[in-house]
């Protein structure tokens, strides 16, 4: 197990290098630089050039790249140009918000997705199945940011029940935190629930046809027990796979939802950095997202072993 984790971690290094190379390529291709953000429209080219020198942006890309890798290897993601603080600090400060949003949405999407998917499978080809699948499909087809906007208009502006945006740290005020996360998490959940529900349904349909489910039925166990205890654990493997797949999409969705609900998460940090050409933050942020993605996939792989005793890592 440990050696499997180690091997997986080793094999993700090339992926991370590729990610950072791609980010550099992006930065290299991109016109504009952070200097312009400090200045308004009437800044002269000399002023911009002056500022570029101040910010160390007049170095050639390869030398910027080398020094970046050098620093990353010693665990330093560098300094943000605009935020005037270390990139690692900025990221770590934002990370909990993005992760908690993604985790909340993932939790509810998995919970209700499995519930709905199982209900649909058990009622296969009946009214319940078709209506649940229709709902799942509707969720998949709604533009997330648009749903967020509509929810803001209804729940924040018209009804005034929930804040339209902003973030309250959980350490400060739990209720406030829950209120600030309610709409974003709901928005994200709705758009992801369909994936899980659909996967659960097809996996459950598959499993319910299996011999061992018939064996369990032959034992005279109650149907719900058979479904929950015998069928569901076997359906979890494909559900887990799709969960791993949507985790990437979920992070992307979180980025958009953060934007709509003004949550100061990693996504906002990165989009802000893209728009202001804060290169170290773009680098560090994208690298962090890649790390999260890889970690999620590693966890998924490890969970396989937990769910299915046949899977063993040597």
């Amino acid at each position: 197990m440990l050696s499997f984790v180690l091997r997986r971690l080793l094999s993700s290094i090339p992926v991370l290098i590729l990610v950072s190379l791609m980010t550099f390529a992006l930065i290299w291709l991109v016109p504009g630089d952070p200097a312009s953000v400090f200045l308004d429209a009437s800044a002269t080219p000399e002023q911009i050039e002056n500022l570029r020198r101040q910010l160390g942006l007049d170095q050639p890309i390869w030398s910027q790249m080398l020094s970046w890798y050098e620093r990353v290897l010693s665990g330093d993601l560098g300094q943000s140009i605009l935020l005037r603080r270390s990139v690692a600090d900025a990221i770590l400060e934002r990370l909990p918000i993005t992760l908690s949003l993604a985790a909340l949405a993932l939790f509810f999407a998995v919970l209700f997705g499995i519930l709905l998917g199982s209900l649909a499978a058990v009622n296969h080809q009946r009214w319940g199945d078709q209506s649940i699948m229709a709902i799942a499909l509707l969720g998949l087809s709604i533009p997330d940011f648009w749903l967020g906007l509509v929810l803001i208009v209804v729940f924040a502006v018209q009804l005034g029940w929930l804040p339209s945006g902003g973030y309250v740290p959980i350490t400060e005020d739990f209720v406030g935190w829950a209120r600030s996360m309610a709409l974003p998490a709901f928005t994200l959940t709705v758009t992801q629930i369909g994936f899980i529900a659909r996967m659960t349904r097809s996996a459950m349909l598959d499993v319910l046809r299996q011999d061992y489910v018939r064996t369990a039925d032959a034992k005279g166990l109650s149907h719900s027990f058979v479904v929950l205890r015998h069928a569901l654990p076997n359906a979890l493997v494909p559900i887990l796979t799709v969960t791993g797949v949507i985790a990437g999409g979920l992070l992307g969705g979180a980025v958009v939802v953060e934007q709509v609900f003004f949550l100061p998460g990693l996504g906002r940090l990165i989009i802000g950095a893209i728009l202001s050409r804060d290169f170290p933050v773009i680098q560090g942020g994208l690298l962090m997202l890649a790390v999260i993605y890889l970690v999620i996939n590693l966890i998924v792989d490890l969970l396989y072993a937990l769910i299915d005793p046949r899977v063993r890592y040597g």
Partner: protein
Amino acid sequence: MADGRLNAVEGLAPHANRLRTLLVRLVANRSIALGGGLVAIITLLAVFAPLVAPYDPLESNFRARLLPPSAEHWFGTDHFGRDVLSRVIYGGRLSLEIGFLVVLATGIFGTLIGGCAGYFRALDNPVMRLMDAWMAFPAILLAIAVSATLGASVTNVVIALSLATTPHTARIVRASVLVVREMEYVEAARALGARDMRILFVHVLLNSIAPLIVRLTYVFAIAILAEAVLSYIGVGPPPPAPSFGNIIANGRDFMVEAPWVTIFPGVAIFVVVLGLNLLGDGLRDVLDPRMRVER
């Protein structure tokens, strides 16, 4: 049919009879009928926009700004005083065009990359590693980064979205190529001395087409959703030509006072994407029952 591969074989040597059964099943599938119907309606509206739209979508009248829906303007007007219904109808043109171009680009590049990786063993590992790294970027951030920095044009939006959807497509193509590559008739063709590229295209790719078609239907849906997100972030296709996304983006500053500017194009996106998803589901059921909802 229990095994999708058999369908693929039918595709290679279309037996008139089997082709007809396939067509019958395609037509009989409820998802395809409903989804295809929705997509067809929106497509027809978009294509015949000049005939259907009640107003010129670009004609502004600042004296008729932000009018609520009425008999004159069914969907109200935006802050230019432009008819939102007409803009939504015309917006379908750009959104569908972007979706289509993304499907085309993703189809071509996904097939090339996935096909080569699947067919040439030597390429498989390095190429797929690259795809892994690529997928470790959240697709939408990649699209935002590309579109924001290269400037918002239809071309750049298409490039951005294609970059985001290609790796997964390549994976799917590769997976089916791996399966087909080992099948007897490919071995046979190889034994007969067919050149690699010919084998690749004629046999392997033709037979990987079912999952590709299904995937591309979803890519179409993803592209339409993503175009709207890009517009919302402010890096979508530039005005004045309306797209679903930039109509919403235009309306968001007036979201509270004039929600209709935001709501109607959102519903339009929803309908198209729903149609495409239904279509994809139906195609999957008929063409390739092995595929799951994963996409």
